[in-house]
């Protein structure tokens, strides 16, 4: 049985490696910039959702305020770069660390809340942060920050002539988020998180310090999301509070995981690959006034999924696996 388990883990790793190679070759065939843009966003949201899944999927602490960490990552990088000339690579790490610390500071009071009360707290805190940034003059207030464009360079992580560097970076980011999840899944923390999600009292009686487990999950999750935010700031090279800290980002991190399978290794990836292209396509085809149409599409998908397969699309694969002789 140990062997079967090890085999299963190794197969996940091989599938991931194969997918990364396939994804890395895609730009050879896809030259259209618009499609490349969608590919970048899909990979970015896959990474974000995978990171969100660590706290909300594995540890069961549903956050609808992760836009806060996304925004903090974006702002830290942009502010450090425009005000102090610090390269985005350092900004990325700084943003991640700041977010992790803030996630733990917020977790300290919030992790005493259970269920819906926790969810509401995450929404309120992210909205409060949004208001603060809208009024913070030094950080550009509601006008935001325009990141000055230099020559294309990996040093400043700016590219105006091609999307491909962004694509490859987003791919690496998604791969890291996936790999971190894969690694944590079979670690002490992974087991603690799932135990905390399923039954905190029982977990506590088995020596799991529930509070610390939640703090750990929050820190890892916030760090990775902030790195995604830093990337986004470089990618769009202009940020304002609404475009990096708005509630829609919190939703866009949660939905792929929910669609694909919350608390699963592959769920967020699968969900993002379906959801993000769909969003971008409906948005551009319906255009202009159709700002809410993508949300209608989500809504419909979520309703269909919860009716047909509450455990997410990954459940489709799991069922087939069980049916075949082990």
């Amino acid at each position: 049985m140990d062997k079967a388990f090890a085999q299963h883990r190794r197969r996940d790793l091989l599938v991931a490696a194969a997918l990364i190679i396939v994804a890395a070759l895609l730009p050879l065939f896809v030259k259209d910039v618009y499609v490349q843009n969608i590919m970048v966003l899909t990979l970015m949201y896959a990474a974000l959702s995978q990171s969100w899944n660590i706290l909300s999927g594995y540890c069961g602490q549903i956050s609808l305020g992760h836009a806060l960490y996304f925004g903090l990552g974006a702002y830290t990088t942009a502010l450090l770069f425009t005000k102090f000339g610090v390269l985005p690579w350092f900004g990325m790490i700084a943003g991640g660390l700041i977010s992790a610390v803030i996630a733990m500071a917020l977790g300290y009071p919030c992790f005493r809340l259970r269920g819906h009360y926790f969810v509401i707290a995450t929404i309120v805190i992210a909205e409060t942060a949004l208001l603060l940034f809208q009024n913070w003059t030094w950080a550009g207030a509601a006008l935001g920050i325009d990141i000055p464009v230099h020559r294309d360079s990996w040093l400043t992580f700016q590219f105006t002539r091609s999307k491909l560097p962004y694509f490859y970076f987003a791919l690496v980011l998604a791969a890291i988020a996936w790999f971190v999840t894969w690694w944590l899944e079979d670690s002490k923390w992974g087991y603690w998180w799932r135990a905390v999600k399923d039954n905190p009292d029982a977990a506590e009686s088995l020596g799991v310090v529930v509070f610390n487990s939640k703090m750990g999950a929050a820190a890892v999750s916030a760090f990775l999301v902030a790195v995604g935010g830093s990337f986004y700031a470089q990618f769009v090279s202009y940020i304002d509070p609404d475009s990096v800290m708005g509630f829609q980002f919190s939703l866009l991190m949660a939905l792929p995981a929910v669609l694909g399978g919350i608390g699963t290794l592959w769920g967020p990836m699968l969900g993002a690959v379906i959801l993000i292209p769909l969003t971008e396509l409906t948005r551009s085809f319906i255009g202009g006034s159709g700002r809410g149409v993508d949300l209608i599409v989500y809504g419909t998908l979520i309703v269909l999924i919860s009716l047909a397969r509450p455990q997410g699309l990954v459940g489709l694969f799991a069922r087939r696996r069980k049916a075949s002789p082990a």
Partner: protein
Amino acid sequence: MTALLETRAVTQRFSGLVANSDVSISVGRGEIVGLIGPNGAGKSTLFNLIAGAFPPTQGSIWFDGEDVTRLPAAERCQRGVGRTFQVVKSFETMSVVDNVIVGALVRNTHMRGARRKAHEVLEFCGLDARAEVPASELVPSEKRRLEVARALATEPKLLLLDEVLTGLTPVEAQTGVELVRRVRERGITVLMVEHVMEIVMPLVDRAIVLDLGKVLVEGKPTEVVRDPKVITAYLGDRHAVSA
């Protein structure tokens, strides 16, 4: 040698209701002790106090020579107190073996060791064939055994069993009784709450009877069941006369 577990004058109030009042009990190393009493006697409260679910209003709890009164449940587990829950609390989305691994991680830093330990405990509890099944698919008697397996995986010195034998068929209960005996043979002290007297009495070395939050009687099971006070507590005054 000191007792493994001692409660000293423990009192627990829940906003006016006194669930335990001045309860002092002790459990020696290697014993199987039954904690019995009619419904509402305060068994579960005392049990939760010992496991560290909440601290007592007054009094202190000593485990293995140390005052653990203020220690949270997780830390008591690390020191060697394992427990089961009366209403089973399996990790429903996890497989049976994964449930047990959570317990095994208390004493194993590496996953490999924890996994090995988990399989070993599952075999001991007769659940090995169900290792890869989701916990949600177990039948009630298997879930009870999973509770015991999970607690055993933490390698406790003291195992607290909360009504693990209640509500089982006679055959299942007998398997349970044998499991408890084998647990003791491994050198683990057992304190078990039960209210089904006929199952517990042949199993335990000593019985402590609680009634109305106080220790009513304690002693050898054969003596306890004949004690008029116990009969009164369980059945009322009328039956005490005939005893």
